[in-house]
């Protein structure tokens, strides 16, 4: 058994220490909002926060998450989640929606750290998250909108 803290709750997981955190979250803990995209930290669909920093859970072994606060899309704190979701709805961002948990988690980490990011800073921060439906323009506008809300 390995103990980790997920969305504020301590949980015990029966998995090998080298198991990617992604599969621990998705299949051991049934937190399926975090998505599998590539397995090699190239697409961002699996983005979670470790101690508030964005991390690609497909490439973080369970052992490396021990002692850190793991936050998934299901546990994103309301002060970030609400403005982001509101902006995402206002811009009608998602199409298939599969990448959007990761997009929102990535964006949340930016807004958590930076008051009013510039457009270039947003692009640089979000560039690792692929959206195959091509919703980038709307994501960009939604992040700007949410930033205004978070740091009013």
């Amino acid at each position, binding site marked *: 058994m390995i103990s980790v803290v997920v969305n504020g709750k301590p949980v015990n997981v029966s998995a090998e220490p080298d198991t990617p955190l992604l599969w621990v979250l998705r299949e051991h803990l049934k937190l399926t909002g975090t998505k599998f*995209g590539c397995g090699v930290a190239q697409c961002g669909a699996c983005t979670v926060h470790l101690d508030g920093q964005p991390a690609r859970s497909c490439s973080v072994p369970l052992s490396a998450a021990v002692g850190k606060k793991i936050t998934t899309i299901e546990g994103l704190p309301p002060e970030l989640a609400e403005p982001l979701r509101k902006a995402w709805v206002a811009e009608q961002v*998602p199409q298939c929606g599969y990448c959007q948990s990761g997009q929102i988690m990535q964006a949340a980490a930016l807004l958590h750290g930076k008051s009013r990011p510039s457009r270039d800073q947003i692009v640089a921060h979000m560039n*690792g998250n692929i959206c195959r439906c091509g919703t980038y323009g709307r994501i960009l506008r939604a992040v700007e909108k949410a930033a205004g809300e978070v740091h009013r």
Partner: protein
Amino acid sequence: MNDAAVPTATRLNRRSFLLASAGLAVAVGFARVRGARAQEASRIAPNAWIVIDSKGYVNIVSPAAEMGQGAMTALPALVAEDLDADWRSVRVVQAPSDPRRYGNPRLGGLMLTGGSRTLQGYYELLRLAGAHARFVLLRAVANEWAVPTDELMTDSGAVVHRPTNRHIGYGEIAKFATVPSSLRPLGAADLKPLNKCNFIGRKLERLDIPAKLNGTAKFGIDTQVRDLHFGAVLRAPIAGPGMEPGAIDDAAARNVPGVTAIVPLSYGVGIVATTVEATIKSRAALKVDWRGAPKAGQYDSDKVLAEFAAVAEDIGKAGVTFHASGDAAAAIAAAAKTVSATYLNDHVYHATMEPMNATAVVEHDRAELWVPTQSPSWAMAAVAEALQLRTEQVSIHTTYLGGGFGRRSEWDFVVDAALLARAAGKPVKVIWTREDDVTHDKYRPLVAQHLTAGLDAGGAVVGWRHRIVSDSITARIFPKQFRPDANDGSVSEGAVSTYDVGDQLQQWVRQDRGIDVGYWRAVGPGYTRFAAESFVDEVAKAKNVDPLAFRLSLLRDERARNVIETAANMAVWHKPHDERALGLAYSAGWETHVATVAEVSLDRESGQIRVHRVWAAVDAGIAVQPQIVEAQIEGAVVHGTGQALFERISLQGGRVEQSNFHDYRVIRMAEAPEVHVQVLQSAHPPGGIGEVGLPPVAPAIANAVARLAGVRLRHLPMTPERVKAALRA
């Protein structure tokens, strides 16, 4: 209401019969609504599409896969429109796999979401379903209140008796209403005129969006069932069919903790385990001697493409003539001047963000699967064949799709789950790795095209020949049905010119190199429009005329002219752009017209093209949800830009050289152009919208580069190496 939008009488009679006969046994989905009879104490199911409960919730069956194109909002809106429902009371139920009830009339009754046929196929049918249910409710109230039906009207989820202004909500009606065994046939006059519509042509927020923002939307890969096991399949290293596993050394693979079965299959070796991570480790430990002499064993994509180009340019190799008007060969032979060019494109991969996956529960006489599929019909048939069941013994629950783009009309991954679940005797979720997904895709074909235009002494285009050389998609998918002399419409689509270019000849010369090629977003037009629209600019250049003016001079169709003029105006076509240039392309398909202008710059040192802004004007007829049309075009422009500049699958010795997003480059935010879309509403029946935005993007970019740098790029993708080579030439 325009006549064109009115269903014809014949079609109406057939549909109204369907609606009436469907009323008795309403099939409802796997999800929110349990099986309902036509009437129960507290609900009414007027037809196969609608269940209204006593709380007033209107449950509407959505027959198409939701893969981002907004089907589960736009389709229920059609039902709600003519039912005159309160949109806030609408709940959407994904259709069960029941093609007899929910198949697409425009796709031979298949439950298949593809070919941009969803709205084209369901538009009338769903509006009539709503109208039918509305009449059932009106009649029930007329009987209950003993008033004439014509004194009643509906108002957003309620029936109103006009003389007394008495109201009753649909939920209340559901408590007593019965479904009559027959109703008078419904006709166009029973549908709301467009100017009275509450939902059609208005903006509705997409119903699937909230769940996609908090992790609760269930994609196929999220399926959870009791005692769930996990599956993976090691497939052959050479693309295409023709290899099977020989000796299997699974000693190490079996020893991975959690592995419960190693399953030899005809096309690979399956692994079943209690965890995903065990399937991954086990597969890495599996040693397989592959047997067979696959046809694609010598497939080197660059070499094959050069061979295809030679065939395209050898006009003696006629292939299949799939369109001819007049005598193009004679017109070209007699022309004062000819222009010719050869266009090439590499394979591209689908790259749905959700890798292929499926979950199966198999018992001796039935199979139940949860699949992110575009085609329940084909998946059912494939599972039935694989398990030796009857199709009726297979049920498919269609989940959300994390991207489709044609890939999810295939069933290879569905069969994986069915076979492993049967072999293991457990529910199995098969999840392909990204590497599986990249290396075992059904790629868009590798194609060479050769175009020739003949101009008379006055410079008028008098002859137009377009030759296409590629493998066949349809022959691969339906080998028994495909005649050797047939045209494969999916690979040659988009080549017939809608310009006034004199006599035309379009030919497809089939190759068969053993590679699995498949449907991709806007399959054929994705490259045929690249060639044709690039070539229009090449001819304009040969005539030394402006490409916009040239196109307009060759087009009489008002819708075509309108989108082209609109896009040109949006981009301010005639205004000089410093260090940048504009390129234009037009494409019509799936009864929708799109014109696109791209603004590009070019780094001559690196050869990198940068697409800054794109303007697109679209006429999709009645835009049922204009903001979804806009989003689809935006997305297709971004996707199309990546396809034009980056996306490339190459093979050596039949082995795919790319494996993940580090070497299969897709467009990211930093490279995405700013996209401006204008949706032109017209009264024509709704056209397809999921694909049509993509084809004009690549030629618009190539045309812009030609105007900027004087070099013509004729090979997709337009990589920096190819740009530099063109600049040197």
